[in-house]
C-alpha cells in the first residue's frame, strides 16, 4: 500500500502533536530546567515540521490525479493473503507458544505458511518437521534457549 504524501504528512503532524503534548507531563530537572521532556519535545516539533513539508508535494500529486491510497501491483488478493498469513503466524506464535509449546507451534507456523505459499502438503509437512527439529536442536539444545515446552511437558 502506497500512501499519498498528504496522508504521510498528516500522520507525522498528528504523531508529533501527540508526542509534544504527552511529553509536557514528563518531570523537569530540579532547577526547573528541561529534563526528560527536552528531546521528545524537540523531536516532535521537528516531526510536525517535516510533516508539514510533505503536504505541498502531496497536494501536487493529488492535482496530478494521484489517489490518497494506491494499491501496489503485487498487493493482489494472493499477495494480501500471503502478507496476512505471515503476520497472523507470528501473532499465533506469540499467543499459542506458551500453551502449545515450541514444537507444536513452530510446526504449525511453518506448515501453514508453506501451504499458503503453494507448496504440496507432503512437502510442507516434511519442511515443517525438519525446520522445527533443526531450530529446536540449535536453539533449545545447543544454545540452551528456554523454548516453551507447553503440551509436550513430559
Amino acid at each position, binding site marked *: 500500500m502506497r500512501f499519498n504524501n498528504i496522508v*504521510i504528512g498528516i500522520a507525522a503532524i498528528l504523531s508529533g502533536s501527540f508526542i509534544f503534548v504527552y511529553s509536557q507531563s514528563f518531570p523537569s530537572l530540579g532547577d526547573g530546567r528541561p529534563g526528560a521532556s527536552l*528531546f521528545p519535545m524537540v523531536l516532535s516539533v521537528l516531526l510536525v515540521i517535516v510533516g508539514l513539508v510533505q503536504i505541498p508535494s502531496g497536494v501536487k500529486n493529488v492535482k496530478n490525479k494521484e489517489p490518497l491510497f494506491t494499491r501496489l501491483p*503485487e498487493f493482489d488478493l494472493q499477495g494480501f493473503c500471503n*502478507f496476512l498469513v505471515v503476520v497472523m503466524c507470528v501473532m499465533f506464535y506469540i499467543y499459542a507458544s506458551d500453551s502449545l509449546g515450541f514444537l507444536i507451534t513452530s510446526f504449525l507456523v511453518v506448515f501453514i505458511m508453506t501451504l499458503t505459499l503453494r507448496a504440496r502438503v507432503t512437502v510442507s509437512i516434511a519442511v515443517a518437521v525438519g*525446520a*522445527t527439529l533443526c*531450530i529446536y536442536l540449535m536453539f533449545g539444545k545447543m544454545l540452551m534457549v528456554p523454548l516453551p515446552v507447553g503440551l509436550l511437558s513430559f
Partner: protein
Amino acid sequence: MVTFENLANAAGLLWDVNVIIVIVLASMYGLFVGAMPGLTASMATALLVPVTFFMEPVPALAAMVAMEAMAIFAGDIPATLIRIPGTPSSAAYVEDSYALTKQGQASRVMGVQLVVSVIGGFIGTIILIFLAPVLAEVALNFSTYEYFWLACFGLSCAVMVSGGSTSKALLSLLTGLLFNCVGIDIAVGFPRFTFDNPNLFDGFSFIPVMIGMFGVAEILRNVLVKESRIAPFVTQTGNIFKGVWGPIKESWWPMLHSGVVGTAVGILPGAGADIAAWVTYGITKRFSKTPEKFGHGTYEGLVAASTANNSALAGAWVPALVFGIPGDSITAIIIGVLYMKNIQPGPNIFTRSPEIILAVYGTFIMANILLIPFGWLAIKLASKVLKVPRNLLYPVILMFCIVGAFAINNSVFDIGTMLAFGVAAYFMECNSIPVAPAILGLVLGDLLERSFMVSMMKSEWSLTPFFERPISATLGAIVILIWIMPVLFPYIKRKMAKGA
C-alpha cells in the same frame, strides 16, 4: 597499541578450532544468503545475532565479518545468472553482468567479480588497519561536546546519503530517534512512553527491532513477489578463472580508485556497500572512454563497483570501532552485539582490548583469503542454491526470526516488537521512506541525548562550550554546513546560472 604480545594474543584467539569452525560456517551461511535473491546481508547479520549472543566476543565478531564479506560477493552470482541481485550491493552493475552472461561469458564474469571482490576487501582492510588507530588516537581527546557533534554528523550523513527525498529520510530519522526515547530517560530517570509496561522500561530491545526491520520486512516483501517474474536460470560450466586477468588488467585504475572511494563511502555513517557500488559505478562511467557501453555489458563498471562494495565493508568498521558510530546497517547491528558483550566501541577499545581489534583485522584478512575457495565453490553450487524453492525457504526464515527475537531476552514481547517493526519497515519502503536513517537514529539516539544532556549539565546550560574546543568547533561547523547545504546549494546554483 600493536605490540608483539597483542599480535600473539589476537593470533591465539583466532587460531582456535572453534573460531575457525565458526568462520567456516558463517562463510557458508553468508554465501547462501547472499546468493539467494531477496535475502540481504543486513538480514543475515540480524539473524546471526541470536547465535553470536552465546559466543565469546572474538568468534562472534569473526562470524559477522566472514559472513558479510561472503554475502556481498555472493550477491553477484544471481545478478549474473538470473539478473536478480542477491543483495542490493550488486544492483549497480546487474545489467552489465547479465548482458555479458547472455554473450556466454557468465563464468568469466563471476571469476572477475570474485577476484576484484577479494582485491576490494584487501584495500578496505588495509585502510581500516592504518586509519582506525590514527583516528582512535585523536578520539581519545574527545569529550561529550565532540561526541555530540559526531552523533549529529552521523545522523546528518545518514539523511543526506540515503537517496530519494531528504524530507522522507529526515522523517525516518526522527522516527528512529523518537523510538529511542522510549524507556527510562538519562536525565531524571523517568520512564518515558512506557505506558506502565515494564517490558518498555529499558526501551525497545535493539536486536528484535533489527530482526524485524531486516528479516520480517524482507519476508513480507518477498512473499508478495510471484516466482514467474524471475528470469530463467542460465547454466554455465567451465573454469571461472580462465580469462579473468584481461578485464582486470584493462580496468586496473578504476578498480584501485573504486577500492579507495568505496572504503571512504563505507566510512561515511549510513552509507554502505550498495551506495559505494552506485557511486563508483557512476564515477567510472563519468571518466570512461566508452560510457555508452555501460549497462550493455562492459567489464569496466562491473570491476569498479564490485571492488567498491567489498572495500566498503571494512570502511564501515572504521567509525564503528573508533567512535561507536556505525558506517552502515550491518555495523549498526554489530555495535548492538558489542554492547551486549559489554564492549563499548570507541577509542578506548584500542587500548583496553587491542586483541579484539587485531582479531577483527585478522578476520577480515582471513575472510578475504577464504573468499577465493569459498566463492569458487559457491559459483559451482549456484545452480543448486538458486533452485531452492523460495516458498519453502521463507517460512523457515520466519521461524528463525521468531526464535532469534525471543532468544535475546527470552521474552515473547520481543517477538511482538519484531513483528511491529517489520511491518512498519515494509510500509516505510513501500512509501519510499528509507529505513537506514531510522536504524541510525535508534543506534545513535542514546549517544546524542546522553552527550547533549551531560554537556549541558557540565556547562550549566551554556551552548558556548560546544564551539570552544577546536575539534568540537570544527565538527560543529561541518555539521552546520551539512544542515544548510540543501538550502544553500540551489541558491548558489541559481546564482551561477544567472551569472552564466
